[in-house]
């Protein structure tokens, strides 16, 4: 077996172990959380009942049907077996396969997050570069104030203000619960703007450092054009930018609950939160599994991106490693 294959195998083993441990921990923790999914599922009758016998029977029956009385480890093994057959179980609440439920919401989430990431990148790189070039001038200070301002306003305030402006005042935006391109722009822009300050900051500080490097000075001394200098510097700082964008995309996929809820955008973040509140174990578990997979996939992409962008990582001794 060649060295390269060996490293691929070890990488695969590592990924497998991560998946296994992460889902196991999630499994244990969600089961430890107070609350009983079956009680929530059965619902409390609006009119309280005197005869609790039938309720108890039904309750026991469902607990057995969902194997909730088995030990957590047994339940976990059963779940894992299903996962290997590409089956994440059925939601307690809707009886639909979790994989379908998540699959239905995933396009909406991607539709929301991918343009938001593009906006974030545009704003981040654009304003970051301007801010660095005009270091300590008025425009730089304005951009920095803007970042601080954005990071001190709660997300719900920004979202509600925009929603009020566009839906009620300007009547340009429709408040409904559907996924359509006409309904996309507002949540996307909001999400993109809210998440941009971190990137602006990273770009600015990296760019400043890059502009302070000797080779930049040499380039300028040799009469290289301004655009080319910026491009070169930008290329050199692609690494941290990409890393940050990749990681923030994970946050945007799973964590834009407030945006999804205020704009009634049927994405997976809100769905996961609702399922957590309902103790819909299979859905929470499926969501955790999906997120882990996304994280691993994004990490892989970032690693590949590193190799593409940074020639240093192409040295032979590096080549065999995918890094951590």
């Amino acid at each position, binding site marked *: 077996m060649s060295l390269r294959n060996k490293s691929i195998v070890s990488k695969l083993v590592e990924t497998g172990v991560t998946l296994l441990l992460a889902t196991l921990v999630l499994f244990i923790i969600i089961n430890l*959380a*107070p609350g009983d999914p079956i009680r929530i599922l059965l619902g409390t009758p609006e009119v309280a009942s005197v005869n609790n016998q039938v309720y108890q029977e039904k309750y026991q029956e469902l607990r057995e049907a969902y194997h909730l009385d088995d030990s957590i480890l047994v339940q976990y093994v059963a779940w894992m077996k299903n996962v290997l057959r590409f089956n994440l179980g059925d939601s307690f609440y809707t009886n639909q396969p979790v994989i379908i439920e998540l699959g239905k919401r995933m396009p909406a989430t*991607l539709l929301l997050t*991918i343009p938001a990431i593009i906006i974030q990148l545009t704003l981040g790189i654009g304003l970051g570069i301007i801010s660095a070039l005009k270091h300590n001038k008025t425009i730089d200070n304005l951009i920095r104030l803007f970042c601080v301002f954005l990071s001190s306003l709660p997300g719900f305030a920004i979202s509600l203000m925009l929603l009020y402006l566009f839906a009620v005042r300007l009547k340009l*935006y429709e408040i409904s619960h559907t996924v359509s391109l006409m309904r996309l722009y507002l949540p996307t822009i909001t999400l993109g703007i809210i998440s941009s300050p971190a990137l602006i900051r990273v770009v600015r500080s990296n760019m400043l450092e890059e502009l302070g490097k000797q080779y930049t000075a040499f380039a300028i001394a040799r009469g290289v054009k301004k655009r080319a200098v910026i491009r070169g510097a930008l*290329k050199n700082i692609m690494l941290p930018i990409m890393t940050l964008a990749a990681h923030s995309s994970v946050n945007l996929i799973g964590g834009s609950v407030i945006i999804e*809820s205020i704009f009634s955008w049927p994405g997976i973040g809100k769905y996961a939160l609702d399922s957590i509140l309902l103790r819909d174990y299979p859905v929470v578990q499926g969501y955790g599994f999906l997120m882990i997979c996304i994280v691993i996939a994004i990490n892989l992409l970032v690693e590949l991106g590193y190799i593409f962008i940074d020639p240093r990582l192409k040295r032979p001794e590096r080549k065999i490693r995918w890094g951590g």
Partner: protein
Amino acid sequence: MKILNSYSIKQLRFWLLLMIIGLILCLAGCTGQNSMVNDNTLEDTTNKNTELVLVEREISSNYDPNFYPGSNHYIKNGSAEALFKVDEQGVVQPSLAKGFERIDKHTWHILLRPEAKFWSGVKIDSEAVIASLERSRASNIRALPMLEGLTFTPLEEWRIKVDTERSNLFVPLNLSYMELCIINADKSHDSVETMDMSGMYKVVEFEPKKSMILEINDNYYGEKPNIERIIHEAISDQETRSLAVLSQRADIAMQISNESIAQLKMDENVILYSAPASNTGTIYLNLRKAKFEDIRVRQALAWGLDREELVLLGSEGLSTPTSTWLSSNPKYKDQRTKIYSHYDFDKAEDLLEAAGWVKRDDGMRYKDDNLLHIKLMTWGQDKALGETIQNQWSKLGISVEVQYGDYSLIMTAREEGEWDASIEAWTTFGDEYALLSTQFSPEGSGNYGGFNNSQINNMLEELKNAETEQRKVEIATQIDSLAAELAPSIYMYPRVETTAVNKRLKGFQVHFRQFENAINNQLRFE
């Protein structure tokens, strides 16, 4: 020169291209999925004679109305009907059934409409109705209390005999319950195609928990509605729901939060319908705790609540105070100020003193060196109420700890007995015996504190066997008053339910049971 590596610029372009391709693929994927969703964009708002948009916090989670939340949302949007309905005065009226006859104190007859049909055209005869009710009994735990002790037998094609275990049970009231909509039990109810119900609208598109589109049911037996399509959507965020009416995209928005009302009132295109619901916001006391054994402590807590202020701070002044449990039911509204007629701080202090809880220098009350401490559990959405109670009781020298939680947290605390007081609002509309026994009989499921009083138990038994309606009301009133006096729990005010309706929509009916009132066949746009 390193920075002028043209290769790297190509790399940049490559990434940019990759992103754009990803975006395009994603958009394409989603527009594909969109075709099933009604893409009614903004132009539709100009042509509203054909379409009504109804939004509320949540909609059905399942095609099968017997799954919670299901049935009441189907009744709300006009796609399903129960045999009877309660009108806004609280009187039971025929709905899917034509009428009822009381044969004797254990037997009722229900008369069906020969012209009534399910969406599919299948007739709704005795067999079909019984099959549906039995299906609910088997699969819907929330329907159980209403079906307890009822036996259904088909007498004729359009006549059902109902035998009751209990005497003098008003069966039509039970059958008007929101979980008991009549559906075709032969169908599987697991997709739009296999749904078969009886309402004036039928479901044509449905994404569980998100949105539902309904169109007029041509097989409907009664007067057909004016509006061709109903779009029923879930908008979970309460501020967004208010904005949905303000933007005039939604024609009816339900469960409007009390806090949004001030803003909605200012808009001339919106009409608000607020009605105190028939439920009573109650502070249940955990009677298993020693400190609540003394009736004087419980009464002091009841006297020491300024209900007017609670209404103002807890419901934005929209509700009306109630001092007994039944008094939020329109029938018993005279009970409202019967026991704890006013806020009496001094009386509360005296009662606490008499019970041996003495104020010390720190302003707190102690008895045998034990601090009078109350752990009050309340829902995350009832925070204002919790803080107001805390403030009022603190003035009496009681140390109050308020704990918010979601459903599970509160349920767990109740099961483990780790609470002193807990807020809940049960419905007070229905059969008096059933209602009161859930609250005050030792095995009632709404009796969290473990209240057990032999006098009340006897009176409940008497209520169960009461012959006439008048006698029923009499005993119920007595139980209600006595219970308030014994104070196993403390009554505050009914929750307020507000619906915001677009001004152009005419024919909306206010109702104290919200699920009965959203869509009716008189609705039309002007």
